[in-house]
């Protein structure tokens, strides 16, 4: 069932290019609705609405997700505020190569703040989100190379050393000054 050739020729993951869910999500919705048997006509309608209006937008600070026409929903969250990432794959998800990537922030809602569905290569999306969330990288890490920081630190410490030596010498001189001053008395 797995197709290694497809896996290898996958284009590199680019979150910014994701705007619409994969068509496999429609298949997923139809099958999942069909499994409710009698309720199928009722269940499929909101799912179809959801699929056809679902939009994602990944920018460099956060992700927004919107769906619905009559009952419109839009969620925006920043990557840094992600508390935990849950990836759930049921049997149908796995067969279709999908997953539900639930992203939670620290708000008090019982369910995930955002559940990103219908993304091909959900692991790559999860890794992308993980890399952006807090704590995944050293906090003081910047784009500037690490060496320049340590260089400046080194320079600062050498100048403080010099200052320290000077201060000690000044202290010694002052104490000498005092002893000289005290001598005549």
């Amino acid at each position, binding site marked *: 069932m797995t197709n290694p050739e497809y896996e290898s020729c996958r284009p590199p993951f680019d979150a910014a290019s994701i705007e619409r869910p994969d068509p496999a999500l429609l298949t997923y919705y139809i099958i999942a609705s069909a499994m409710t048997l009698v309720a199928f006509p009722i269940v499929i309608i909101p799912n179809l609405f959801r699929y056809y209006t679902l939009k994602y937008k990944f920018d460099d600070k956060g992700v927004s997700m919107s769906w619905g026409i009559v009952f419109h929903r839009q969620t925006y969250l920043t990557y840094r505020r992600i508390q935990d990432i849950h990836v*759930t794959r049921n*049997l149908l998800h796995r067969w279709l190569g999908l997953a539900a990537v639930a992203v939670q922030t620290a708000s008090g*809602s019982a369910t995930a703040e955002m559940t990103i569905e219908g993304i091909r290569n959900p692991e790559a999306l999860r890794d992308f989100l993980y890399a952006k969330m807090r*704590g995944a990288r050293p906090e003081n890490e910047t784009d500037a190379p690490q060496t320049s920081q340590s260089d400046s630190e080194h320079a600062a410490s050498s100048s403080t050393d010099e200052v320290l030596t000077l201060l000690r010498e000044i202290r010694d001189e002052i104490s000498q000054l005092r002893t000289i001053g005290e001598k005549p008395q």
Partner: protein
Amino acid sequence: MKTQTLAAAEWVYAGLWGVLVRWFRVPQEPPTLAVRPGETVDSFRPAEGYLRYLKFWFWLVLLIVDIGLTTAWIAIFIVNPVVGAALSPIALFIIIAPDIIAYIAIHLRYDTTWYVMTDRSLRIRRGIISIHEVTITFENVQNVMLRRGPLQRYYGIADLIVQTAGGGGAGPHGEGGGGHLGVIEGIANADALRDRILARLRDSKSAGLGDEAHPVPSHPPQHAMQLTPDHVATLRQILGGLRRLNGERGHY
């Protein structure tokens, strides 16, 4: 004979795994976590004791349920032998089949549970039909809970529960916290792991609520005062002045 049965059981189990991997796409490999060079990755499963702990419950429930079912069947047999005889295949099936399924499910549950820990984060995978993976960075962890019952103590295991901020109702597995938690079940070194996570928490300077990165001075006393060559030159002048003064006073 015993080893043959064991080998046969293992063969069947391996075949089942093959079916799960091939047709049900259960991942065979442990989950991975992206790390930076120099950071360690620890990938582990629950301890052996956890399997024995689950099996203890299995045998306990099996005993109670099967005694109940057998008694009911015998009662029917006594009241009406014809109906009892007719029901015997169904009764045997009801008594035996769930036990086998449950026993296999315990092994599958054990074999599909994975914990991955790096210096920065934690990933937990659990489940067979529905596979659930949680990723939590230690930076976001609010508290660490250790849970160990008497039976778990006997088997030398404990559950470690890592919680992040945010409330809500029951989680995906019935725990509180709205899924803001990672449950590391049935591990032998729970205390060491807790200490490791707590040490990581103590080092953290943030509250774990998505605070933005502030340029926090790492060595406040040294960095607070930026020394320039002018400072050094001024100090030299003071020293020179003092020396001259000392020299003059020394002549008296």
